[in-house]
C-alpha cells in the first residue's frame, strides 16, 4: 500500500474561482500500490476539477470492481460515490443520469471491467449517449486477482510469469468511435500535461466522453515484455498533437502556431485547441480517426490525444425529451394523475 495521496503539496495553496484549493478536491488515502498509474489519474482528475471550478458535491463518482474502481475513493471527498458491481457501472450511471442530469458523472472503470465482463453495458452506454465522462484506467491486467491477462493486452505481450497472450486486444478507442461515442481520447497516466486538458474537455463535453488511459500496473504489468509498461509506453507513444483546454470566457493562450492548430468548440462554448501534427487529421471526422488509430497500431505505436469529437450530438436525456427539471425533484402533484383521471380510466375499462 502506497499511502500515496494525490497532490499533497500546495506550497502557495492557489485558489480557484470558488475560493477552493486543490486540497478541497482530494479524497481518501489511496490503498493502491506505490507508483500505480491510477493514482496519477486521480491527481489529474483533481487538477481538472480544480481548474474548472467544479463544485465537488455536484459530482457523482461511479465505478465497477477492480483496482481502477477503487480510485473514486481517492478523489473528491465531497462527492457521492457508488462502487457498484463488476462491469455494471454504466447501467448505474445511465439510471442516475436520467434521474438528475444536473450532476457531473465521472465513471471510473478498468480494462477488465469495460473490455470483458462489462463490455455490453459499456457499448450500450456509449450508444445511448449517456452524458458522462468514462475513464478506462487501462493497465492490461487483472491486478486485484494477481496478474491475469485482460482483453486489452497486445497479442505479443507476456504476463509477469512469462506466458504469451494468445488473443488479440480490443482497442477501446476505435470501438467507442464506432459505437457513437462523441468524445474519444487516449492518454497515458504519466503524461499529466496531456491528460489534464483532455479530462477538462471531457467534463465540458455533453454526451458520452471516453478517456482510455494507459495506466501501467507496477506490480503485475510493468516488466520488459509488457506493452503496457511505463518504458514501453514512453517509447511507443505517438502523441497526436498537443491538446489545450480553454474554458468558456477565457482568453485563448496557446503555444501553437496559429496555422498548425485546430480548435474544437464544445457544447458550452469552451474550446479545445489541438496542435496539428498532420494536416490531414480532423478529429471531427470519425473515418479519419479510425484510420489514424489503425495506421498507428500497425506501426506498433500507441496514438494518444483527442482522437474524435462530435459536438453536435444529443445526449440521452435530450433524445428522450426529459424536462430541464430533474426527475428526482418532481413532487407528488406533478407525478400523480389523481382520482378524477382514475375515474376516467375506470370508465375506459368498463
Amino acid at each position, binding site marked *: 500500500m502506497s499511502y500515496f495521496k494525490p497532490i499533497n503539496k500546495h506550497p502557495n495553496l492557489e485558489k480557484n474561482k470558488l475560493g477552493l484549493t486543490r486540497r478541497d478536491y482530494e479524497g481518501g488515502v489511496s490503498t493502491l500500490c506505490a507508483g500505480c498509474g491510477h493514482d496519477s489519474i486521480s491527481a489529474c482528475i483533481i487538477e481538472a476539477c480544480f481548474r474548472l471550478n467544479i463544485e465537488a458535491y455536484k459530482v457523482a463518482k461511479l465505478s465497477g470492481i477492480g483496482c481502477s474502481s477503487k480510485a473514486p475513493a481517492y478523489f473528491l471527498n465531497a462527492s457521492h460515490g*457508488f462502487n457498484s458491481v463488476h462491469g455494471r457501472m454504466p447501467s448505474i450511471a445511465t439510471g442516475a443520469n436520467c434521474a*438528475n442530469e444536473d450532476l457531473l458523472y465521472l465513471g471510473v472503470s478498468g480494462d477488465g471491467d469495460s473490455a470483458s465482463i462489462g463490455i455490453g453495458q459499456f457499448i450500450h452506454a456509449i450508444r445511448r449517449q449517456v452524458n458522462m465522462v468514462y475513464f478506462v484506467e487501462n493497465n492490461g491486467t487483472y491486478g486485484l486477482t494477481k496478474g491475469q491477462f485482460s482483453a486489452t493486452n497486445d497479442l505479443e505481450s507476456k504476463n509477469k510469469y512469462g506466458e504469451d497472450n494468445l488473443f488479440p486486444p480490443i482497442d477501446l478507442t476505435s470501438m467507442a468511435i464506432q459505437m457513437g461515442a462523441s468524445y474519444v481520447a487516449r492518454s497515458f497516466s504519466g503524461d499529466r500535461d496531456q491528460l489534464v486538458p483532455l479530462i477538462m474537455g471531457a467534463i465540458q463535453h455533453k454526451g458520452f466522453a471516453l478517456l482510455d488511459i494507459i495506466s501501467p500496473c507496477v506490480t503485475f504489468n510493468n516488466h520488459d515484455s509488457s506493452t503496457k509498461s511505463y518504458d514501453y509506453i514512453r517509447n511507443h507513444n505517438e502523441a497526436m498533437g498537443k491538446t489545450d483546454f480553454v474554458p468558456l470566457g477565457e482568453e485563448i493562450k496557446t503555444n501553437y502556431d496559429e496555422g498548425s492548430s485546430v480548435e474544437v468548440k464544445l457544447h458550452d462554448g469552451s474550446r479545445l485547441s489541438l496542435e496539428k501534427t498532420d494536416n490531414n487529421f480532423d478529429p471531427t471526422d470519425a473515418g479519419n480517426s479510425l484510420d489514424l488509430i489503425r495506421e498507428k497500431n500497425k506501426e506498433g505505436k500507441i496514438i494518444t490525444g483527442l482522437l474524435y469529437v462530435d459536438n453536435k450530438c444529443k445526449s440521452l436525456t435530450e433524445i428522450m425529451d426529459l424536462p430541464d427539471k430533474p426527475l428526482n425533484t418532481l413532487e407528488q402533484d406533478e407525478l400523480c394523475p389523481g382520482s378524477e383521471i382514475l375515474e376516467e*380510466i375506470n370508465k375506459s375499462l368498463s
Partner: protein
Amino acid sequence: MENPVKVDPINSLNDFVIKFANVNGTGSASANQMFAKSIFRMGIPISPKNIFPSNIQGLPTWFEVRVNNKGYLGSRGGVDIAVAMNPQTYSQDIEEISEGGYLLYDSTWKRNFNRDDITIIEIPLTQLCVDSFTNAKQRALFKNIAYVGALSPLLEIEYEVLEKLISEQFVSKPALIEPNIKALNIGRDYVLKNLPYPLGINVKREDKLKNKILVSGNDACGLGAVYGGATFCSWYPITPSTSVAEGFEKYASKYRIDSQTEKNNYISVQAEDELAAIGMAIGANWNGARGFTATSGPGISLMSEFLGLAYFAEVPLVIFNIQRGGPSTGMPTRTQQSDILSCAYASHGDTKHVLLFPEDPQECFEFSAEAFNLAERLQTPVFVISDLDIGMNDWVTDKFEWDDNQKYDRGKVLKAEDLDNMDNFGRYLDVDDDGICYRTYPGTHPEKGAFFTRGTSHDEYARYTENGDINEQTLTRLVKKFRTASELVPDPIINLSEKQGSSGVIFYGSTSAAMYEAKDILNENNIEVDLMRIRSFPFNLDVWEFIENHDLIYVIEQNRDSQMRTLIMAEGGISAEKLRSLVWFNGDPIQAKFIAKKIYERESQQALMT
C-alpha cells in the same frame, strides 16, 4: 346441424365455457376480445384466458372464456362450445368438448367429426368472406369478426353491444368501422337465414358488474407505477412481463406530460439485458427518482447479482416479477408461481427481500403504487410478484381507487437544512432503532452528507471495512429492518369458518380465484375450512397466529416444490407435518375442482363426486 344428436344438448344460461381455437398471427385476438367484452357489457361476469404459444405466426392459439353468473373467475376446465378455426388442432379441440356441447367450425371445407354427442354448427366462414371482400387480408381477418357475428343470435348476445364495441375500437380509424360491421353481419345473417337459434347455451343481461372493470394485471401494474410516482422504468423484453413496461408507457405518455413544457416527466429505457435493466433502476433510485424494472423468472436469475447490491447497500427498488413456467426457459407462455424462493432469497450471501402478492388486477394497481412507498421507506428492493395468468389475461375486477389525500412516503431522506442541523451524519447509523437509516441524494449539500455507496462490507459511515464484527452488526441490523418491514407490508386476509377446529388453507396470488370457488364447493359438501390469503413477505404476526391456531393447513400453490410452504417452514420453524402441500404446476391456471377434490378427500377420507 346435420348430425343427429344422441345426447341432450347442454342447456345453460350465463354459465358455460367457450373456447376459440385459432392460428396465431391471423388477427383472431381482437375478435375474441370483442366477444368477451360484449358479455361483460351485458353485466355478466367472465374470465377470459389466452392460451398461446411462444411464437409469432402459424402455431395454434386458444382463447377461452368462462361465463359465470356467480362470479367465479378461476379456470373451470372443460369446454361447452368450441369455435374451431384451426384444422391443425381439430382432433384435440373436438375431443375436449363436453358431452352435449357445441362445435362451430368453418364449413367451407366440410369435415366429418367422430362425435355424435355434440351439436355441430357449420358456417362456411371463409367462403362468405371471399364472397364479400376483395382484399386478401380483409378476407382472412374478417372471418374472425364473422364468427363473432354468428355467435350473436346463437348465444343471444345483444347485437347493439357488438356494434358499439366496434365503433369504440375504431374511433381513431373510422374507415374501419363499416367493413367490421359488415363482417359482423355476414356471420349474423347466415345464422338468421340458415340455422336454428338460439342454442341451449345462451346469455341474458344481468346487473352483476357494478363498479367492476375489465383489465389485465400488467396494465394495472403499469398504471399503479404511474400513480405511485415512478419516473424511471428500465426493462428488457420478456414474456409475460413486457406489457408492464408497455402499460407504464401507455399511461405515462398520456398523464405525465408536463403541461407547460410538454416534456416527458418520466423515462422508459429498453435496456440491453436484464442486468442493465436492474442496474439502471438502481442508479435512478440511488439518485432519488422512483424507478422500477419488470421481468420474469429468467430475468430474476440475471438480476440476482444486483439485487444483492441493492439489499446490502440499501438502495430502494421496485421489481415486477410476472412469473411464467420454469425452470430455465421453461414454458414462457404458461403460468406458474414458481419464483417464490428465488425472489425471497435472491442473490448470494444472506439476503431476504420484501415480496407482495397481488391476487388480481385491482390489487396489482394498489400494490404497484404501494411498492414504491415501501421501497423508499425500507430502502430495499420490493418485489411485486404476479404471474402470467393475472398479468396477461383480462380480469373482471373492482374498479381502481385512489385517495387524493394519501401522500407518498419518500422515506428517511435528509435535505440540506437537515444536514445543517446535525453534527454526525452516518449513512448506516441506526438512529431510530428500527434498522432503517437516513440517506442523502447526491448533490444535496456542499459539505455534508456525501457517502460512498458500495457492495463491499462497510461501517456505519459507509467506509470500507474488513472488520468481521462490524460486518456482523450490519447484517444483524438488516434483520431488524426486515422485522420492521413485516409491520408495514399488507396484512393477510383471513376468513374463518363458523365451525371450530376447521382445517386451514393458505394460498396467494392467482390461486385465489379458484380457491374461493373451491371453498363454496367444499361448503356444499359439508366441509368447512378457514382461509388465509398471504399478501406479502416477510410474514407478520397474523400469519403466524393463523398457523399456530390450526393443526392442519393446506398450502395451495402453483409450483412443484411447494415453495411458499418451504418459506413458511424456514422462516417460522413450522413443522412439515402441519403444512400439507397441494400443488398444481402444469402451466394452466389452477382449477377449483382440483383444490376441492383434494381437500375433500383428505378431510372426509372419501372421494368427491363433482
